[in-house]
C-alpha cells in the first residue's frame, strides 16, 4: 500500500517478484544451460546480472550513495562545515535563505535550510547515512527473523506451524503506526533517566526493531512455503539417509536453496524502509534532532515546494533516485535468478 501507513510486508511490490523463483529452487532443475558449460545456477545468475545494463547503472548509483554516505565526515572536513552548523546570518527576516536558488553559493553548494540555516549538502549526506543504515539493518533484521520463523514453521509442521501462521496473521492485523507511536516513547523513557539525552543510536535501534518486528511476516511465509516444498525432495531424503542431523539439513541443504528469493525480498524491502522511515516523520516518531536524517529532511522540506523549491528538490530527488535504483536492482536480481522471466 503506497499510503505508507503500514510496513513493507503488505505491499505488493515485493510480491510481484517472489512467487516466481519458487519453481526453480533446488539444485536439480539447474538448467538447460548447465549442460553446455557446467556452471552453477548462482554463477549463471551472476553472469546474467553482469550483462544487464540497468542493473549495472542502478548498482553504480547505489554504490555512489553508499560511498557518499560513508565518506560524509570526509566531505565535512573538506568543506569545513559540520552538519549542525547554523548560518542564521544568511537567512532573511522570515528565516529564508538569502540569495539565489535557496542560498546556493560557493560555500554552500546546495544552499541552506530555511529556518535553521544549516548546510543542505551536509544534512543530506549525513542524513543519507542514517536512512541507509536504518533501511539496511531493518531489512536484514526482518529477513533474519523471517527466515528463522519460516524454517521453524515449515520444518516443524503441526501445532508450531499453526501457531506461526496465527502469529503472522496477528502481526499483519496489528496497526504498525499505532504500535510505533506508542512504543517508541515508552521505551525511550524506560531506558534513559531524566537528565540524559536519549542517544541517537538508541532511537535508531528502536526504529529498526519496530520495523523488524512488523516486517518479518512476508519472508517467513515465503521461507515456510519453500521449506515445505523442499523437505520432501530427494536430496533431503538422501541427506537424511546418509545420517545428517536436522541442523545440517536445515543449514547446509535447505538454506542454500532458498537464499535467492530471500535476497530479492531484501533488495525490495530496503527502498520501502527508506520511504517509511520518511513517513515516520509525519507522526514525529522518526529520528530526532540533532541527528541528520533524510526522512525527516524530506518531511520538513515538502511544505517549501512553492516558497523554496530547491530545499524540496534535493532530498526529494535523492530519495526518488535511491528507491528507483533499489527497485531496478531488485528487478534485475529477480530476472537473473529466474531464467524464465526474461524480459
Amino acid at each position, binding site marked *: 500500500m503506497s*499510503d505508507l501507513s503500514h510496513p513493507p510486508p503488505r505491499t505488493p511490490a515485493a510480491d510481484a517478484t517472489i*512467487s516466481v523463483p519458487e519453481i526453480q529452487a533446488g539444485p536439480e532443475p539447474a538448467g538447460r544451460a548447465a549442460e553446455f558449460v557446467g556452471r552453477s545456477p548462482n554463477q549463471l545468475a551472476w553472469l546474467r546480472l553482469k550483462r544487464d545494463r540497468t542493473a549495472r547503472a542502478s548498482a553504480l548509483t547505489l554504490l555512489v550513495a553508499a560511498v557518499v554516505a560513508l565518506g560524509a565526515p570526509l566531505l565535512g572536513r573538506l568543506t569545513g562545515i559540520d552538519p549542525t552548523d547554523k548560518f542564521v546570518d544568511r537567512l532573511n527576516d522570515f528565516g529564508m535563505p538569502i540569495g539565489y536558488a535557496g542560498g546556493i553559493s560557493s560555500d554552500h553548494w546546495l544552499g541552506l535550510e530555511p529556518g535553521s540555516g544549516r548546510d543542505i549538502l551536509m544534512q543530506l549526506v549525513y542524513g543519507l547515512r542514517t536512512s541507509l543504515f536504518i533501511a539496511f539493518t531493518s531489512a536484514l533484521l526482518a529477513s533474519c527473523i523471517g527466515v528463522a520463523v519460516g524454517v521453524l514453521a515449515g520444518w516443524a509442521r503441526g501445532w508450531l506451524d499453526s501457531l506461526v501462521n496465527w502469529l503472522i496473521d496477528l502481526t499483519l492485523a496489528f496497526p504498525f503506526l499505532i504500535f510505533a507511536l506508542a512504543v517508541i516513547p515508552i521505551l525511550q523513557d524506560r531506558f534513559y533517566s531524566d537528565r540524559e539525552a536519549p542517544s541517537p543510536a538508541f532511537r535508531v535501534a528502536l526504529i529498526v526493531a519496530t520495523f523488524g518486528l512488523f516486517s518479518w511476516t512476508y519472508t517467513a511465509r515465503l521461507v515456510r512455503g519453500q521449506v515445505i516444498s523442499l523437505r520432501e525432495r530427494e536430496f533431503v531424503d538422501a541427506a537424511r539417509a546418509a545420517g545428517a542431523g536436522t541442523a545440517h539439513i536445515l543449514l547446509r541443504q535447505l538454506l542454500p536453496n532458498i537464499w535467492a528469493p530471500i535476497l530479492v525480498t531484501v533488495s525490495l524491502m530496503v527502498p520501502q524502509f527508506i520511504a517509511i522511515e520518511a513517513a515516520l516523520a509525519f507522526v514525529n516518531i522518526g529520528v530526532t534532532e540533532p541527528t541528520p536524517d533524510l526522512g525527516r529532511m524530506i518531511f520538513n522540506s515538502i511544505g517549501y515546494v512553492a516558497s523554496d523549491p530547491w530545499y524540496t528538490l534535493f532530498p526529494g530527488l535523492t530519495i526518488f533516485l535511491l528507491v528507483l535504483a533499489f527497485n531496478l536492482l531488485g528487478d534485475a536480481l529477480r530476472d537473473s535468478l529466474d531464467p524464465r522471466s526474461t*524480459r
Partner: protein
Amino acid sequence: MLRFVVRRLLVAALTLVVISLVTFGLFFAVPSSPAKVMCGKNCTAEDIAQVERRLGIDQPLPRQYADFVGGVFAGRTYGEGDFRQDCPAPCLGYSFRNNQPVTEIVAQRAPVTFSIVLGGAVLWLGLGISLGMVSALRRGTAFDRAAIGVTLAGASMQVYFFGLILLYLLVYSTGLLPFPSYTPLTESPARWAAGLLLPWMTLGFLNSALYARLSRAQMLETLSEDFIRTARAKGLPARQVHTRHALRAAITPIVTIAGLDIGTSLGGTFITETIFGLQGLGKATVEAVQFLNLPVVMATVLLAAVFIVVANIVVDVLYAVIDPRVRLG
C-alpha cells in the same frame, strides 16, 4: 467450506482479543496520563483525580478491560450523579477529548476512508491490471518498455511527495481542481467524486504501478504454462485464450494481494488523509493516540484489525471460487 469459515472466524476472534489486550496494555504503559492532557491549564492533583474518575481510568487495568468488553456487548454507564451517561450496547465509550460517543466518531469517519479507498482501488486495479496485462501480451514492444518505466517511477514515488505536487499543480497554483473535501455519496454523487478526485488520482497512480508490475509478471508466467500452450494448440482464438484462460489463472494471486491491500487501507490511510485534509479513520486513530484518547484508539485499532482479518478470510474464499484447484478444508 462452512467448517473452514467457522474455524477461521474463531481464530479471527482470538486475534482481535489479543490485539485489544495489547493496545490496552500499551496505552497504560505510556508515561503521561490522559487526565492531565484533558485537565487544561491550572490543574491540581485533585482535579486530575476527578477527571480520572470521570473517565474511568482510576480503576485497575483488568477491571477497565472487563468494563470495556462489557460495554461492547451489554452497554455501560459513565459518570456519577447528575453527570450520569448511559451508553447502550454496542458501547465503545466516549471520546476523552470531547465526550462524543465513539460509535458516532467511527460512523462519521469510516465513510470518508471507505470512499478514498474504494474509489482509489477501482482506479488502481483497473489501470494497473489492464496496463500489466497489455504489456505482458506485447512483451518487448515500446509500449511494454514505456509501461515498465512508468510503473517503476510510480513505485518509487511516495504518496506524500506525489500528492503534494499534485496539490500545488492542480489546486494551489492553477485552481483546476477544488481542494479535496468529503461530501457524502448520498448527498451528491457529483460533489462526492469531485472532492475525492485528487486522492484517487494519487493512490490510483502510485498503486497501479505496483499492480501493473505484479500482473505483468503473473501474466508472463501464466502465458508460459502448459495449459495455455494446449489451449492455443487446440486452435482457440487468442482473445479467448488470454481472457478465459490466462487472465483467470494470473488473477488469483492479484486477488490475494488486492484483498489484503484494500482490507488494510480500509482501517485508515493516514498519510493520504493528512495530505488532502480529509477526516478519515487513519487521521482519527493517529490523533487519538497523540491525545491518549483510549476509547477512540481501541475502536479504530479494532476496526482496522477486523477489516484485515475479514479481508483475509474473504480472500481465501474468493481464491477457491476463482481457482478450481484450491479446495478449502
